[in-house]
């Protein structure tokens, strides 16, 4: 080969090498979702509830989903729900469970830093768990033998006994125990100081907060997963629904949370605006309190089945939620772990009437009150009452103020039919425990075989076996027609024209925009 030929070969090889390097870097960046551009622009939300400083501290996470609206921005968890994954490793690169189910070991992602530059360490993880006092804290700490820092990367949670639901409590919005705060900083500023100027490891850092007005956040460019595309996030509290819509129409905000009924239709009609439904673990269902009384018509399974066939779920969905909610055929939400999909109850008023005739009620019967809260108990309860009336199940709608309703419900003081609902995070067993098993806070009656299966699954560590037991349990509940599932209400939101990725619905069972680092504005 001549000298110039060798040079050409070298040139080609160099070029190929350069291409390989560029491709490798690009693919790595792509794998991490990394972006090279600096964050730019501002996204504004009209939030329907007042943001509270308590939401800035994961240690105080109550058993409601609202704080996660802020937590996903400011903080990061060892494990948290992410797009396509109900439990994704975030600050934890990986985790494992010992064969005896007693030890959960988490390996920290290396090089992750808090907003103040401090590295995220296993000491921070232990500190965060120890100071956690929010929802589920009592149960988790009672079951925990020790939290052991193995080294700078590894930490172990040692349980007293195997607990099948540990990760449900730890790694989902059921609690905020997996969300990590910087030990050094919290000790330095104290709990109150932390709420005034929170520091986390999330994709956005705290800039300013005016109680009752707005929260301003700015992109944390060193966020491990990717550099956020949007520089500034503003979460503005606008309590009135009509005003939220007006702000969306004017372009003052990009997303307006919780737009319902005629206003949602208005969003659909408005050019440039879009309606984005999200779903969380919320569902509604009927409970007959008289079912356990042998003299009551509800004691007859055919009557309960008739009630289920009498309700036009799709009609209610179209009328109240513009067809965007999910029809419920179980009182366990479809997005919950261990959900069993029962055969659907198809609307059939004639079949319902026939069943009532067979049960000995050709002229129907007086079923007493249909008691619900003043929100869903009216919006959905009213059409349900009308459908029941149409087949002869005569109920009187009795809306109760929310607190009074749940108080009387929990104290088992309600009679007739209850319009029930729950959005508590967790999984199927946590929902079953409260409503369908003896001793449950809202259980008006239970069956021994259902109770037996519940006890059986509690300590079952094999997920497949446990799933079989829980599916069997739900099957029995369906066969016995314990409940009258109605609808899983959608959470409707208005979205403005500036957004390319609004983040609504990306994370399953999460009502709000997330993950924030994935949000994008349209290019002008």
């Amino acid at each position, binding site marked *: 080969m001549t000298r110039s030929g060798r040079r050409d070969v070298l040139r080609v090889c160099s070029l190929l090498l350069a291409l390989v390097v560029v491709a490798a870097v690009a693919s790595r960046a792509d794998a991490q979702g990394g972006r090279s551009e600096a964050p730019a622009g501002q996204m504004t939300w009209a939030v329907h509830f*007042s943001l*509270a*400083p*308590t939401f800035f501290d994961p240690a*105080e996470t*109550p*058993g*409601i*989903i609202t704080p996660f609206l802020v937590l996903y921005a400011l903080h990061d968890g060892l494990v948290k729900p992410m797009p396509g994954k109900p439990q994704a490793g975030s600050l934890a690169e990986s985790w494992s469970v010992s064969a005896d189910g007693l030890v959960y070991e988490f390996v920290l992602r290396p090089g992750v830093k808090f907003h103040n530059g401090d590295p995220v360490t296993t000491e921070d993880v232990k500190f965060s768990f120890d100071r956690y*006092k929010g*929802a*589920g*804290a*009592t*149960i988790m700490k009672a079951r925990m033998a020790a939290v052991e820092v193995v080294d700078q990367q590894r930490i172990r949670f040692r349980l007293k006994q195997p607990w099948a639901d540990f990760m449900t409590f730890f790694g989902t919005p059921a609690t905020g125990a997996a969300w990590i705060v910087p030990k050094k900083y919290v000790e330095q500023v104290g709990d*109150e100081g932390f*709420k005034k100027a929170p520091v986390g490891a999330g994709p956005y850092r705290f800039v300013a907060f*005016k*109680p*009752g*007005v*707005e929260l301003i956040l700015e992109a944390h460019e060193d966020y491990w997963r990717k550099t956020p595309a949007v520089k500034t996030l503003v979460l*503005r*509290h*606008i*309590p*009135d629904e*009509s*005003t939220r819509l*007006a*702000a969306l*129409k*004017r372009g*003052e905000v990009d997303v307006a949370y919780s737009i319902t009924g005629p206003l949602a239709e208005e969003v659909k009609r408005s050019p440039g605006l879009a309606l984005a439904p999200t779903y969380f673990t919320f569902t509604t269902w009927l409970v007959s309190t008289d079912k356990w009384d042998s003299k009551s018509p509800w004691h007859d399974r055919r009557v309960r089945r008739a009630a289920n066939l009498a309700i036009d779920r799709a009609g209610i969905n179209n009328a109240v939620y513009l067809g965007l909610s999910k029809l419920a055929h179980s009182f366990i939400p479809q997005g919950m772990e261990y959900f069993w999909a029962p055969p659907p109850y198809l609307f059939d008023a004639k079949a319902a009437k026939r069943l009532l005739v067979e049960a000995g009620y050709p002229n129907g019967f007086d079923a007493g009150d249909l008691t619900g809260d003043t929100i869903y108990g009216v919006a959905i309860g009213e059409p349900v009452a009308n459908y029941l009336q149409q087949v002869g199940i005569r109920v009187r709608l009795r809306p109760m*103020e*929310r*607190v*009074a309703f*749940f*108080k009387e*419900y*929990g104290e088992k003081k309600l009679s007739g039919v209850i319009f*029930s*609902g*729950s*959005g*508590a*995070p967790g999984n199927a067993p*946590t*929902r079953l425990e*409260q*409503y369908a098993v003896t001793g449950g*806070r*809202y259980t008006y009656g239970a069956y021994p075989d259902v109770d037996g299966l519940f006890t059986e699954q509690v300590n079952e560590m094999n997920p497949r076996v446990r799933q079989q037991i829980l599916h069997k349990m739900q099957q029995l509940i369906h066969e016995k027609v314990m409940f009258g599932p109605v609808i899983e209400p959608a959470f409707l939101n208005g979205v403005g024209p500036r957004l390319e990725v609004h983040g609504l619905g990306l994370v399953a069972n999460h009502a709000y925009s997330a993950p924030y680092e994935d949000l994008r504005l349209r290019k002008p």
Partner: protein
Amino acid sequence: MKRYIVKRVGFAAISLVLLSVTIFLLVRLTGDPTVLLVEPGASQADMEAIRKQFGLDRPLWVQYGHFVSSLVRGDLGHSFYYRTPVLELYLSRLPSSLLLASAAMAFSLVIGIPTGIIAAVRVNQWWDSAGKVFALLGLSLPSFWVGLLLILFFSVYLGWLPSSGSGTAAHLLMPAFALGWYFAAAHMRLTRSSMLDVLGSEYVKLARLKGLPEALVIGKHAFKNALIPVLTLAGINLVIMVNVAVVVETVFAWPGIGRLLYEGIAFRDFPVVQATVILNGAMVVVVSLLVDILYAVIDPRIRFAR
């Protein structure tokens, strides 16, 4: 005079004590706030933990004792929802409420007084009828409806004003109008009736007989005296505006005390409701006390009356 003031201060103190007892008991009649702080279906352990944290597991009389002893020390407790000191929350919202109330008051006086004067001077004529219609509308149209109409017209259709929020003068215009609208009508009615009384008095007739120009009779002799009850009412109304702006503040997302109270009620945030009602009540009591004392200073008959 000293005895009179001591007596009035005593009455004011009794009013506040009664208010504190009433509000303490009334908020607790509304039910268990833990129900709203967790999702329905939350575990019993979580609910118990919250009750314990907020002291709701203790007997009522112990809770009241703690409430009163804290109140005496100037501690209004911690919000269940915000988990921050209530006094801090209240004070952070007070400037916004005072600003809104002042703007609404200015609006109500600027509109109410001139229309009241014109209606009285042109009594039973077109201007008077127009004033009556204005008063009727002002007193009967609910402020939330007026507020929504304003947003629809000035924000959505014309795009002139921001739909909600605070921070600039433009943010203040619509809420001030919506809040001041009712009070403008009230001030207009009082100005009109007060002016009519004064215009029919002997000294005004004398002024006219003396051949003074009508503008001078109205502006100098009648208006000054007619203004006294209007300004007295305006002073009390200013305090009332701070307290009744709940709906307007909610519609316009105005960060005032009214919205704090609304949120407190919605979340059964007992400490917030108690503190807001007591502090707002104290505001009304103090202003009433000052008015009583001022009246007594001006009119000796009041201080010697039994």
